């Protein structure tokens, strides 16, 4: 059984992670993750678009200069549909007391709504770009190793890593089954509930076999020391550093929250 390389490209398996050696790749994974909190809190603090917009501009420029344009693209892909929905719901659909700034027939655009949509989109974009920057530049195994070094249970790390592996695999296998069905023209016949049934019947063996495989995997993990007590090591050495910086980043969120409340 030679696996199909087109459907199993590493990019599809590792999702966000991009191999590289930029300065951001070299920052300790937990430092990058810790930075998400103060950045996001700062973005949500205050009630104008100014703070999140400044953070965004700085972040995008930094990423572009650092040859990490892919982070910007990935973030954009995620944030675009939300931004669209925000502008439609708040800028166009929602009724306001104030006069619209423009209107064509039944459609009118309101300044207050546009501002709210813009601010919200910018805030979400700060969060998305912070997480995406962190996760694009850390290999999952390095990430898990860093967490285990700081006392996160290796069992939790296992569940995270296995989830991250199974997720794209399940998605891939499911979409292959669904694509195959669609290409046979199934979506033209039958009512919705009926199509639903057919599809579920097709997916069920995949799901049930993954459940039945659990017993064997449990035994295999046991025979490989999953429940063993004591310290874990890692074949990849991750330097344990930046603890003070990471704590400071997390702590920085507190004055920001206080500031936001007082504002």
């Amino acid at each position: 059984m030679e696996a199909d390389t087109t459907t199993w490209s590493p990019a599809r398996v590792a999702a966000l992670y991009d191999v590289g050696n930029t300065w951001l790749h070299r920052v300790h994974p937990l430092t990058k993750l810790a930075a998400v909190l103060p950045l996001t809190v700062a973005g949500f603090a205050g009630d104008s678009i100014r703070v999140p917009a400044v953070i965004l501009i700085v972040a995008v420029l930094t990423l572009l200069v650092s040859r990490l344009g892919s982070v910007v693209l990935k973030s954009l892909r995620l944030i675009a549909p939300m931004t669209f929905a925000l502008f439609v719901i708040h800028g166009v659909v929602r009724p306001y007391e104030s006069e619209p700034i423009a209107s064509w027939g039944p459609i009118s655009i309101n300044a207050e709504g546009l501002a709210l949509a813009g601010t919200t989109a910018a805030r979400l974009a700060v969060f998305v770009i912070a997480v995406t920057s962190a996760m694009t530049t850390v290999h999952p195994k390095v990430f898990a190793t860093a967490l285990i070094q700081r006392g996160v249970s290796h069992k939790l790390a296992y569940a995270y890593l296995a989830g991250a592996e199974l997720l794209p695999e399940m998605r891939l296998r499911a979409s292959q089954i669904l694509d195959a069905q669609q290409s046979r023209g199934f979506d033209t016949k039958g009512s919705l509930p009926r199509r639903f049934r057919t599809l579920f019947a097709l997916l069920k063996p995949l799901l049930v076999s993954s459940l039945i495989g659990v017993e064997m995997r449990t035994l295999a993990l046991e025979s490989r020391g999953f429940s063993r007590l004591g310290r874990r090591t890692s074949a990849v050495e991750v330097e344990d550093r930046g603890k003070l910086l990471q704590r400071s980043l997390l702590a920085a969120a507190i004055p920001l929250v206080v500031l936001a409340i007082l504002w």
Partner: protein
Amino acid sequence: MVSGARGPDSTGSRTAVFAGFQEFGVTYDTASTPSLTGLTLELHSDKLTLITGPSGSGKSTLVRVLAGFIPRLLHGKIEGSAEVLGNDVESAPPNSITDSIGMVFDNPFDQLTAATKTAFDETAYALENEGLHPAEIVDRVMGALESVGLADLAGHHPRRLSGGQSQRLAIACALAQQKPILVLDDPTSQLDPTGTAEVVSMVGKLRREHTTVVLVAQDLTHWLAIADRLVILDGGRVTADGSPASLLAEPGLLADQVMIPRYVAIWAELRSRGIELGDRAPLGTDQLLASLQASDGAGG
């Protein structure tokens, strides 16, 4: 015929017993009938013991006891006693048995962790759990992958391996842990012919290097030639035990319990038609051919 103590191995040499079962029985918590009952058997180091029998005969249960999974992880009612490497299976401390027995299952993929991105990381997983130094992990992993012929694929995603490669990876995981005993539960039953050939030759190589192997197989075709001893289970107990060549000398008697390899069936058929082929069953097609040529030479 319950005769583990008679040491029925082809070489006749006496080796240490590493596991012993005395009137042993298991009834799973989820089952009403026992999977093993009144089983008495001793297993020897530095041998390849081949275990066979019909579906539901208790083969898989037996190897799960041997690997330390029953009754600690798979719960059930135990009768009699079983000792593996000096540990009673009911009272053995966690990991005392699993640390010494390498286990390879029939499904090539379900037995992997599913949490790793490379064959290297997959093999390293157990060693990381042991807390070994990174340099030693790298050494042992590369050594193990080398010896199963997967060193070139160390960076490949485990899911991208073929079934045969995946089974070799599972063997490598056990080798990296330096476990002295390897237990394989029908390791080729879900493989294509290429994968089967890969795994058979790998096990043969390990056997020649004096690894102790316990192997369960429904289809004996590829395994007889490297087996030192054949144990047949039926209804949760041992029904026959001896050297493969002598046990299969009367294949008709075993037809209900064993899938008789074609070369043995042909040998028995020719013999029943009066062709003199000796009274030891052939353990492979080449042995059958050799004895045919010998008899041809004698007759012609």
